[in-house]
């Protein structure tokens, strides 16, 4: 590595959140943003990286040529990050340039504003059915298990064309994958089962195409003259499953907690349902659940502010910190459902910006135009202080959310 080219690290990658406000990003970001917005830090994975914490710089750097995404996911923040295994072909989030553009263009038709709008009634029905079930339940309700997880999971099943009779099992196993309190052996087994499941799904759709994302993806790639291999299709299917499931599920549960902790904001939202779309953008900004930011390899020198980020070095662009930058969002630490927050960085920025963002928006909009209307007295069933948050997973959230009404 060429670490010697740049200044030595001046601090550690921030990971500790404040005990008072679990919605705020790790406390260390504020100081970096104010004093050293382009800093060198030591990361938990044992590498040094550039840490970019200001809103404008994050946007600039994520749109720079000379960045590569072909890196281990969360490679900076995970002490067990694996830098040796080659990246899978078909891993859209870990590909660059032409290879990335090819994969992305095969999928963008599935996530257009128009196509996702057409899913709204289906999503609303899922939400209504799950609220009915919670209201009818005689058992204690966990909003994560009973609402936030199954809804995005079932939407992805519908999109991918998972047969109805397999959806319960699929959802159960993917729930294990996204859980933090699970026995490692159980997680390995669930992972293997999901991989096998997606592989079988891909093979089935190759033989018997139906009207679903995977079948259309296979056909589209064939028509383009560059068919996707089974391996690529499985990796793409798994990426869509994980990305489409975990992020939205955590946003649903965490946003619910944030609204319950900001009752004035919740009251405004209830009084004026037209605020839901802007409130959703604001919750995306305020909560920034991709908590450790985006990790990239620098492949060509990038001038940024007073620094030059050198080829061969690592970069972390902090979405959570950029989203709390007061130069972009006045009173950035306040949740404000009236704010025009659509320029937030929660979906990333640049060519890799979240492919499924329109789907996430529609799911969150339908949830927050329904949940507190159908269950107006919804409240926590345990003291707020007893909630446990996911401090060490890629996607931030609450581990479980006991609620009553």
């Amino acid at each position, binding site marked *: 590595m060429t670490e010697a080219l740049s200044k030595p690290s001046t601090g550690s990658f921030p990971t500790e959140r404040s005990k008072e406000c679990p919605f705020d990003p790790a406390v260390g970001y504020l100081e970096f943003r104010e004093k050293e917005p382009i800093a060198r830090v030591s990361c938990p994975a044992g590498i040094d990286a550039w840490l970019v914490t200001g809103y404008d710089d994050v946007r600039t750097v994520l749109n720079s040529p000379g960045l590569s995404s072909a890196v281990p996911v969360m490679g900076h923040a995970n002490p067990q990050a694996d830098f040796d295994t080659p990246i899978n072909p078909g891993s859209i989030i870990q590909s660059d340039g032409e290879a990335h553009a090819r994969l992305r*263009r095969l999928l963008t038709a599935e996530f*257009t504003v128009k196509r996702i709008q057409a899913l709204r009634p289906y999503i609303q029905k899922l939400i209504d059915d799950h609220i009915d079930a919670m209201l009818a339940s005689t058992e204690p309700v966990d909003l994560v298990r009973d609402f936030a997880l199954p809804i995005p999971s079932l939407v992805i099943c519908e999109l991918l064309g998972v047969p109805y009779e397999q959806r319960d099992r699929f959802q159960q196993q993917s729930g294990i994958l996204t859980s933090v309190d699970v026995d490692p052996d159980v997680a390995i087994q669930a992972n293997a089962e999901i991989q096998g499941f997606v592989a079988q799904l891909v093979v089935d759709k190759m033989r018997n195409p139906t009207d679903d994302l995977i079948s259309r993806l296979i056909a589209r790639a064939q028509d383009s003259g560059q068919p996707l291999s089974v391996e690529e299709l499985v990796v793409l299917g798994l990426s869509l499953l994980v990305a489409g499931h975990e992020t939205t599920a955590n946003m649903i549960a965490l946003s619910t907690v944030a609204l319950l902790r900001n009752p004035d904001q919740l009251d405004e939202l209830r009084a004026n349902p037209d605020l839901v779309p802007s409130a959703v953008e604001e919750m995306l900004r305020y909560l920034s659940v991709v908590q450790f930011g985006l990790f990239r390899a620098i492949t060509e020198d990038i001038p940024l502010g007073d620094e030059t980020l050198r080829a061969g070095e690592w970069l972390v662009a902090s979405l959570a910190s950029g989203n709390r930058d007061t130069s972009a969002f006045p009173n950035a630490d306040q949740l404000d459902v009236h704010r025009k927050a659509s320029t937030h960085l929660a979906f990333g920025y640049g*060519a890799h*910006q979240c492919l499924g963002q329109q789907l996430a928006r529609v799911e969150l909009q339908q949830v927050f135009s329904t949940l507190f209307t159908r269950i107006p007295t919804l409240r926590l069933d345990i003291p707020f202080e007893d909630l446990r948050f996911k401090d060490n997973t890629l996607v931030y959230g609450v581990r479980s959310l006991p609620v009553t009404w």
Partner: protein
Amino acid sequence: MRVTIDEDGCVGAGQCVLAAPDVFDQRDEDGIVVLLDETPAPHLHDATREAAVLCPALVIHLAE
């Protein structure tokens, strides 16, 4: 205001369609941007500027 787009750089995120649906659309077959109105009327200027700011690939260019 005159709008131009760099179709090759478009990543199909759909931000422009949300911000200014009278000015931008997406092709059904690959989600790539379609410019509906090269010279939007003044009441659409703010929304068009917002679309240009939101575009994650910076492919919307405005001459004002």
